[in-house]
């Protein structure tokens, strides 16, 4: 399904992820050391490491609203853009990645110094 290229990894097509939903991209698809959650919030796409920095919950199952995702386990919130924690109990950021919308596809570019993209 995912196509690796120097221009990113295609993880989905526009329309595959409803507004307010997220897609979990497993590590096998990216070569990254964590799954990546790709979020759709109010028309924009974002990507963060999927595992919450507080525990072991999957952020792709979190609540997405106003540029933030709330962890399904203990409700820590993270900025979708930067991965920075917005409230307790999380105190460390999750890594942020970039999503490019191109040719009707969603292309994931792993954050600086990470994984196998490029």
């Amino acid at each position, binding site marked *: 399904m995912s196509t690796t290229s120097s221009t990113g990894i295609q993880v989905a097509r526009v329309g595959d992820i409803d507004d*307010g939903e997220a897609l979990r991209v497993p590590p096998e698809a990216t070569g990254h050391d964590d799954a990546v959650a790709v979020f759709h919030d109010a028309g924009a796409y974002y990507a963060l490491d999927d595992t919450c920095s507080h525990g072991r919950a999957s952020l792709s199952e979190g609540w997405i609203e106003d540029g933030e995702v709330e962890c399904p386990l*203990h*409700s820590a919130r993270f900025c979708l853009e930067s991965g920075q924690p917005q409230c307790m*109990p999380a105190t460390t950021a999750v890594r942020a990645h970039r999503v490019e919308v191109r040719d009707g596809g969603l292309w994931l570019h792993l954050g600086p110094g990470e994984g196998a993209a490029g």
Partner: protein
Amino acid sequence: MSSRRRIAVVGAGLAAVSVCDALRAQGYDGELVLFSAESGLPYDRPPLSKDVLLGKARREDVLLRPEQWYTERLVTLREATVVRAVRPHEGGLELADGTAVDADRVVLATGGTPRALPVPGGDDPAVHVLRTWEDSVRLRERLLPGTRVAVVGAGLIGAETAAVAVARGCRVTLVDPVAVPLAGVVGDTVAGALHGRHTTEGIDVITGGVCRLEHPPGGGVVLRLAGQCRSVQADLVVVGIGIRPATGLAEAAGLHVDDGVVVGPGQHTSHPNIFAVGDVARRSGHRVRHEHWEAALRGGEAAAHGILGRPLPEPGASWFWSDRHGSRLEAVGTMADAERTVLRGTPDSGAFTVLGLRDGRLVAAAAIDRGPDIRAARRIVDRGIPVDAARLADESADLRALLKR
């Protein structure tokens, strides 16, 4: 702020650590000292009756904060250091070894201790409680396949412990005087489904009160039940009948204590320089102490604002969770506050939600394995959005749609 040079926190559980986090986030740059009666880095308690007891989590997996958090945020942890007294007039504390510690503000975050079974034989060595890391490890070592385990109290910790014990191959009996525990908080339907699940999983569930523990000559323990000729034979007993708030220091300091240290919205006690947070505190005007994880966290945040004299964060609806038999219960608010309830989903499927309404608003929600409903419900409660019962019951409609402007 510069006049406040040191804040001393008694206890180092979630509430204590949350106070420190929030104080630093608010820019407090004075000293912060945590006094912990326990040894080692502070840890989180919920896993003690879940993954730790199942043998799936080690101590380093359940730390509240990593070691560098203390150095980065300049929080001094004085582990294995018991505070013996709070001295409001002198402005400070006295440690068990007699040392005096000055502090401008004192935060009591002392939690609670498990209530002992108030019956003859209730202090038997075969009786376990579950509050600390050591309690959990001691119990885990004894939950061996075939062991007869009697759990007294089917509330949150008792129910979780019984579920772990049966998963580990123990023969489990769960005894509670209440036929359907938790019904007041989560409503009859959810409480009934949760409690019924114990039986399906192979736990012998008994409605009754333990009135005496005896030692038969052949070993083990016998639990006698009040008014019943039936008794329970066990190799070990776990008692989960609630906690007593650790109010000793507050009482000795002359603070207002009434089923917990009584606090106002900014967690102030009856003394202006002393604050109380977490399981030990009770909000004045609230009937009960909210002995839950998130209440400890939010109380810590509120105390930081109170200490620094900042406007308080909006208190949201209460929330807690509990894991048993591979399912997750979550609840928002208290179902007893509702005048009518609406069911989403079918209890027979195992996963469903009950929403509690009052005057056309949502006031409570309880769900088994339906996290997204709970997340939406919480926001609907907090934002006071008017709701329509038929629409809430309609499974084809996403609750999130109600939040869209």
